[in-house]
C-alpha cells in the first residue's frame, strides 16, 4: 500500500476502530458505572452493606475479567451471532469487546468511588439524603474526575484490544498493522498505522487529563 491507497486504508481502519471502541466504551460506561457503584455500596461497612449480594457480584466481575480477550473473541462467537446476527466484521467484534470492557470498567469505577471520603456519605445521610441522592449528588460528582481518568484508561485498553478484532474480520487500525505490516512485511503500512495509534493514544490521554483536571476543583 502506498500514497492514496495507504491514506484510504488508514482512514477506513480508523473509522472502524472508532466505531468498535466508541460503542463498546459507551456501553461499558453505562453498565460498568452502576456495577462499580453497586460493588462499593454493597461492600462491608457501606450504605447497602450486603455480603450475600456483594460476593457473587464481585465473583462475576472477576470471572469476566479472567478471560484473555482473544479467547473471549472465539468462545463468544455463537453468542455474538445471537446478539448482532453475524459473527464477522466490526459489529461482531463489538460484542466481545463490550463484554470484556464492562467488568474492567466496573473495577475502575469501583476504585474511583472508593476514593470518595466516607465522611461525605455520612454528611449526606445526616442531611436526610436517600440512596439515589447519595449516588447522584455525592458519589458520582465527587468521583467524576477520577472516573474520567478511568474512562481514558478504558479507551486506550480497548484501542489495543480492538487490534485482535482482525481475528473475526473486524478490521480497524490494529488489524491493518498486523495484516499488512506483520503478515505481508509492508513496513510502511505498519509504521503509518503505529504512528496513527500513537497520536490517538496521546490525544486521548491529553483530553482525559484535561477534563479530569478541570473537574477537580483543587
Amino acid at each position, binding site marked *: 500500500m502506498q500514497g492514496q491507497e495507504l491514506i484510504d486504508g488508514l482512514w477506513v481502519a480508523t473509522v472502524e476502530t472508532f466505531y468498535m471502541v466508541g460503542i463498546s466504551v459507551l456501553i461499558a460506561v453505562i453498565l460498568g458505572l452502576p456495577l462499580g457503584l453497586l460493588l462499593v455500596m454493597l461492600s462491608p461497612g457501606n450504605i447497602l452493606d450486603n455480603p450475600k449480594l456483594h460476593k457473587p457480584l464481585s465473583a462475576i466481575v472477576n470471572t469476566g475479567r479472567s478471560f484473555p480477550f482473544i479467547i473471549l473473541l472465539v468462545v463468544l462467537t455463537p453468542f455474538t451471532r445471537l446478539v448482532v446476527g453475524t459473527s464477522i466484521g466490526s459489529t461482531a467484534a463489538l460484542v466481545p469487546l463490550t463484554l470484556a470492557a464492562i467488568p474492567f470498567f466496573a473495577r475502575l469505577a469501583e476504585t474511583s468511588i472508593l476514593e470518595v*471520603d466516607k*465522611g*461525605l456519605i*455520612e*454528611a449526606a*445521610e*445526616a*442531611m*436526610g*439524603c*436517600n440512596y439515589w*441522592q447519595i449516588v447522584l*449528588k*455525592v458519589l458520582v*460528582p*465527587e468521583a*467524576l474526575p477520577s472516573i474520567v481518568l478511568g474512562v481514558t484508561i478504558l479507551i486506550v485498553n480497548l484501542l489495543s484490544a480492538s487490534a485482535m478484532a482482525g481475528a473475526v474480520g473486524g478490521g480497524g487500525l490494529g488489524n491493518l498493522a498486523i495484516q499488512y505490516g506483520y503478515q505481508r512485511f509492508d513496513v510502511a503500512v505498519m509504521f503509518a498505522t503505529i504512528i496513527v495509534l500513537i497520536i490517538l493514544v496521546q490525544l486521548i490521554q491529553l483530553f482525559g487529563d484535561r477534563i479530569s483536571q478541570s*473537574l*477537580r*476543583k*483543587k
Partner: protein
Amino acid sequence: MITFTQDSVSSFFQTENETENAITFTDVRKVYQQGDHAIAALDGVTLQVKPGEIYGVLGQSGAGKSTLIRCVNQLEKPTSGSVQVNGQEMTRLSGKELRQSRQHIGMIFQHFNLLSCRTVAQDVAFPLEIIGYSKLQRKAKVEELLALVGLEGKANAYPAQLSGGQKQRVGIARALAGEPKVLLSDEATSALDPQTTRSILDLLRDLNRRMGLTILLITHEMGVVKYICDSVAILNAGRIVEQGPVSDLITKPESLLSQEFFPRRVQRQPRAGAVIATIAFDEALADEPIFSALTRHFDVNVSILSGSVEPVGDRRVGQFQIELVGERAADALKYLHELNYAVEVH
C-alpha cells in the same frame, strides 16, 4: 474525707421537669459485634439535653462519643434503649420519616465533610435541594446563611481555597439550612488551631444565644467544655461517669470535671499540726480577699499547694489546695463553708 458542698437544688427537680427536653437518651446501649466478641460502645447511657443549652460530652478517644452523637440522628441504630429528639422517638423511625426528621437536625464534623466539587454556595444549598426548596428560594436562603456565619464574600470559592475555620463555617451554614432546633457537633474544632477553635466556638455560642439553638457537642478537649458548655457528661468506656451543669461540677472539688480541669493536687500528708483542704468557688466569690481574711480572723498561716482561677464561659471559677497551720484552722474552714465556698478536707 469530709465534704461540704452546696447541694444543688436544680438536680433534684431535673427529673421532675415538665418542659420537653431537646434530646433524651434513656438507657441507650450500642453493641458492635466484632467476630466472636462484642464491644459495648454505649453501655446504658441516660442523659437529657434541655432546649437552648450547649451540652458537651467529654471523653477520651474510643469512649463512645461518636457512637453517642450518631445515635441522635440514627446514623447508628442503638441496640436497645430510647432516643428522643424534641419529643420524637427516633429509634422507631425509618425510611422517609427518618430522612425527613434528619433534615431538621443539623450536624457538623471534625473534617468538615464539604463536597469538593461544589462551591460554598452550592454546598450550603445542598440540604435545601434535599428538602425541596426552589432554585430562587435556595439563593435567598443561602445568602442569609452565609451572612449568618460571616462568609458573605466566599460564595463562589471551592473548599480547597478555604482555611479550616472557613470550612467549618460552611459546615455550620449547611447544618443550619434545615432550620434545626438541634445541632450535633462531632469534634467540630478538633482539627483547628486554638485561635480558630475559639472563633468557631464563639460563633456556636452566638447562634445558641440568638436563635435558641440547642447544641450537643462531643469533644476530647476540656478547653471546649470550659469555653462554651452549659452542661457536661463525662463518658468513659461507653458509660456516663458524671454529668451535670458545668458551673456546679467545676466548683465541686470531688468532681471528675474539676479534677481534670484544675492543676493536679499535691498528694502528701499535712505537716505536723496542719490541715490540708481544697476550696472551690465561682464568680460570686472570685474577688474576695479570702486568704488574708483567714489570717486576720483566725490567726492561721495559709500555704497554697496547688490551684488556679480560670475563666469558664464568661465567669471565673477557682480551686485552691491549701495547707492551714494554726489552732483555729478548723474554724477557718467552717467560716469558708459558711461563706459558700466548697470545702474538702483531706
